[in-house]
């Protein structure tokens, strides 16, 4: 067994520098690496490029890094919940690359799988296709999208073991397994870290080979963005 455990978040973030590219897992606030984001927001690293489906909300998630203007560029698919984000983008302080969600997911997966580029129908005929090669397959136009890589990928899982194997819960899985594959250094934080051998190998979602560092997250707020309920009959 190759032991991937680091003892604290500072050790997990060793090597993080200004102007790096990070992948950050999560969809909305579900499944975001809360501890890594909190630690990054206290470090003096700036000029970051962040690849993440969303940009958090004003006071949580990647919103914390936006507030300190640590992010130079965001690569996302949907950024609607963050007023500070919108302000920085419209004023030109923040560079933003919006890409279709499926292409974002596949571009991460492709990087991790050694596929430098692929053709997809998503975005053909739109702004997204500008400057991209178009090819017709089965009578339908497709555009060329390239793999996305990152210096660090920060992901969050429900359970993990000391070998770096990960199990996710619910819809908190989302981009985490794909970004784990794509990061040069993947830091996985988990709610519960167990010794290797305790997780059923049949039930593991992300094999530990994709994870370089694993740690138990110190605390999780797990904020709900849109609390929607129904009345009991």
């Amino acid at each position, binding site marked *: 067994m190759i032991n991937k455990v680091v003892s604290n978040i500072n050790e997990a973030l060793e090597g993080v520098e200004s102007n790096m590219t990070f992948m950050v897992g999560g969809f909305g606030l579900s499944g975001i690496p809360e501890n890594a984001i909190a630690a990054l927001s206290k470090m003096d690293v700036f000029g970051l490029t962040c690849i993440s489906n969303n940009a958090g909300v004003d006071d949580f998630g990647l919103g914390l890094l936006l507030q300190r203007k640590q992010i130079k560029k965001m690569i996302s*698919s949907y950024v*609607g919940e963050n007023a500070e984000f919108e302000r920085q983008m419209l004023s030109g302080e923040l560079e933003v690359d919006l890409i279709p969600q*499926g292409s974002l997911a596949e571009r991460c997966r492709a990087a991790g799988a050694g596929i430098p580029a692929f053709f997809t129908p998503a975005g053909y005929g739109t702004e997204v296709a500008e400057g991209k090669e178009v090819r017709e397959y089965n009578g339908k136009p497709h555009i060329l999208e390239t793999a996305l890589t990152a210096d660090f990928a920060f992901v969050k899982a429900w359970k993990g073991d000391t070998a770096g194997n990960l199990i*996710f819960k619910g819809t*908190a899985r989302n981009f985490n*397994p*794909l970004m784990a594959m794509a990061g040069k250094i993947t830091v996985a934080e988990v709610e519960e870290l167990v010794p290797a051998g305790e997780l059923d190998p049949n039930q593991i979602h992300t094999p530990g080979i994709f994870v370089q560092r694993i740690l138990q997250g110190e605390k999780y707020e797990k904020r709900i963005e849109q609390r*929607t309920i*129904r009345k009991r009959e």
Partner: protein
Amino acid sequence: MLDKNQIAQRIAQELEHNTYVNLGIGIPTLVANYIPQGIDIEFQSENGVLGMGPFPFEGDEDPDLINAGKQTITTLDGAVLFDSATSFAMIRGQHVQLTVLGAMEVSENGDIANWKIPGKMVKGMGGAMDLVASADNIIVAMMHTNRAGESKILKQCTLPITGVNCVKKVVTNLAVLEVTNKGFKLLERAPGVSVEEIKNATAADLIIEGEIPEMVL
């Protein structure tokens, strides 16, 4: 004239038995409340769930279980959870048969615009571009006109588009329109709304053949 719930109710009549359906944010989400008797549907949400159920009871909300609108949800028997690449494999690979989504504009050749107003609103396309590029059947649910009273049914979209030549049907508060290769065909009127009123609220030309029936909800 229909309200938002009635638009959803009319769209629910388009649901086919034993199909997988993706519902967008807003009016489309309401479609799940009106599934006709005897029709079995599984709802997919692109953030990674198939077999999505209703909202949870108070106290049962789980931050690890949300839909693409970030709302707390539940899962039904037979549900499955997966990552975003698998989710979009279902969409791009045309395993999800129907997509219902909102729009700011739809043009007579089936183009849709719903992700950006240059210089004003930039929220992003989320999964919409992948969805409209792939699903066999795409139905738009929206109000017929915008807040300024201008038609959202156009000869050509003025806003940046989300997808080309993809919308099959549009259900608005005034009418049901089909996108044909000759343009919009008026299929049904909302209760109490005349063909004349629909024509006046529509910037694109309408193909009107014979008597146009009133919707039955």
